[in-house]
């Protein structure tokens, strides 16, 4: 533990874990459902943060990958009638294959070019899902994806999602602190310097995209079992952009920020929008306001304030 910051972080972690585990005893089914959804979209946003926050590659097509995984599961469940192991297997395979194809396409691009290509990629998955009627059921989607027996109740599934998301978060935490994660930050800061140092930046982008795609795939599989339904809108740019909004709202490059951003967005969407009909307008305005006035996000802003407070009290040295 280094200084007060470490203790505060540990305390927050333990407190949120305790609340997280005890949640089904504390609140009703509706709220548990919302928290389950927020955990899943939080994992999705963290997969975006790995690329955007650490690699400096803002992806606008991540929902295409999750949706491919969801469709893999739903197809095996609804149309093929396969067992749950096969469903998850095909879901994983679908997500990873789509990630690999996308990764090959983006590995030589960066910056705005990367954003535009990923946008087109995600929207093409959306296009496929509304046209490929035999597999995807077009606009009607694929309803009736049943969960396994031991996860059928809402609180059972909640604990399962909590466990999976915790494991994935721990993996992401390790990844961003590994040499691979540090090299990824180098990619964000200066690709040309990294090239000169002998890094194969194209290959690095490929790997980063695959790792991020894996977590998006897991999120897609969790989501389809939560909703028990998948439709083309989950692959749309709106879904990808929502993930990016969660990421920048919470704080890019912090991993915990996207999760917090996800809770805020899911809450706004499910609770506030019951009384307010124009959700996309709200979302768009939130986007504009965050981009203009709060680019560091909630966590970035808070940790800055905390550091300043510590410095005033002589408990920490200022950065730089």
């Amino acid at each position, binding site marked *: 533990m280094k200084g007060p910051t470490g203790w505060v972080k540990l305390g927050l972690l333990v407190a949120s874990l305790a609340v997280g585990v005890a949640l089904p005893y504390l609140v009703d089914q509706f709220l548990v459902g919302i928290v389950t959804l927020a955990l899943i979209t939080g994992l999705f946003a963290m997969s975006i943060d790995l690329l955007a926050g650490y690699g400096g590659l*803002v992806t*606008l097509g991540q929902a295409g990958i999750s949706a491919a995984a969801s469709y893999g599961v739903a197809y095996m469940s609804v149309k093929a009638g396969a067992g749950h192991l096969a469903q998850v297997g095909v879901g994983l395979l679908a997500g990873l294959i789509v990630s690999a*194809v996308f990764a*090959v*396409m*983006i590995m*030589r*691009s960066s*910056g*705005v*070019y990367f*954003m*535009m*290509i990923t*946008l*087109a*990629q995600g*929207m*093409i998955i*959306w*296009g*496929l899902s509304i*046209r*490929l*009627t*035999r597999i995807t059921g077009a606009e009607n989607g694929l309803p009736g994806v049943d969960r396994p027996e031991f996860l059928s109740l809402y609180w059972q599934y909640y604990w399962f999602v909590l466990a999976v998301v915790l494991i994935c978060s721990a993996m992401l935490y390790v990844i961003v602190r590994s040499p691979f994660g540090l090299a990824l930050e180098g990619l964000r800061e200066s690709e040309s310097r990294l090239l000169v140092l002998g890094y194969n930046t194209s290959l690095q982008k490929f790997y980063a995209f695959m790792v991020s795609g894996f977590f998006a795939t897991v999120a897609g599989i969790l989501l389809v079992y939560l909703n028990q339904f998948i439709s083309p809108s989950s692959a*749309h*740019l*709106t879904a990808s*952009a929502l993930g*990016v909004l969660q990421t*920048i709202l919470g704080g890019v490059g912090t991993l915990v920020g996207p999760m917090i951003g996800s809770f805020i967005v899911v809450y706004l969407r499910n609770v506030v929008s019951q009384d307010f009909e*124009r*959700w*996309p*307008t709200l*979302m*768009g*305005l*939130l*986007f*504009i306001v965050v*981009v*203009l006035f709060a*680019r560091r996000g909630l966590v970035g802003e808070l940790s800055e304030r905390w550091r300043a407070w510590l410095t005033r009290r002589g408990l920490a040295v200022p950065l730089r």
Partner: protein
Amino acid sequence: MKRSWWIAGWSAVLAVTVWWILQQMSLRSFWTQVLNGLSFGAVLFFLASGFTLIFGLMRISNLAHGGFYLVGAYIGITVMGLTGNFPLAVLLGGVAIALLGLFTERVLLRPIRGMEKPEVLLTIGLTFVLGDLSLAIWGGDPTPVPIPEALKGPLQIGNFAYPRYRLFVLICAVVVGAILFFVDRRTRIGALVRAGVDDQEMVAGLGINIKAVFTGVFVFGAFLAGFAGVIGGGFLTVLPGQDFEILLFALVVVIIGGLGSLPGAVLGASLVGLIDAFAKALVPELAFFTLFAPMALILVVRPHGLMGREA
């Protein structure tokens, strides 16, 4: 030598594709699809040329272009409903979106000038707001922009009939394209824009107000998007969600053609229009996917597009 091999190879691919398509359909429907593709490509060209000009000069990827298109189309419908004057509708659609573009560039984008990623994210947010407010104002029913009597119905050439309106759109694209190329290559404004693309600081150092050039190009690009909305709305029905769909097509056009390149926009728009028309006729289930394959291929072989330059 190497270049001629490439040309020979691509010609062979093209010939085989055309031969294969002609096995699937009659010569008459082949030409119909060619014209369908090119007239859709014409609308894409209006959009993509503005997009690519803005990007080339300011490095802003204006993803609100799809939203501009949709709002332009709705304004066209409203003006046609009030006056029934088609040229006025086209003009007002363009001008209204030009004003929207002025607001976007001067008020929204100015504080984050030069920050590439925030700029893109802001224009996405703007697209959501525009799309949702259009839904609130004009409702969700698909409606076309009403077109004048003179452009309705087919034009008969021998025993070949083709909708007049689509031919009109095609002619519009040729005229607009010719004007764009002339202005770009032969006038002082074009020279300023081209100089700005190459070296902004040098242009500013010569005593030219580069910020005014930026605003001018952005507003002009927005005008073209609104113009495209009204013209395109005449044969592509206007409905919510089309902002993102048309944006996808425009993006594929500039990715294939090369960002910042006007000839690239012409080439990309024609290619994407043709691919889309034939795909819809031959393999309707894969209509969007057929855009994906050429895009993937080009990105792997030429990451900066067919006519693009290294960034």
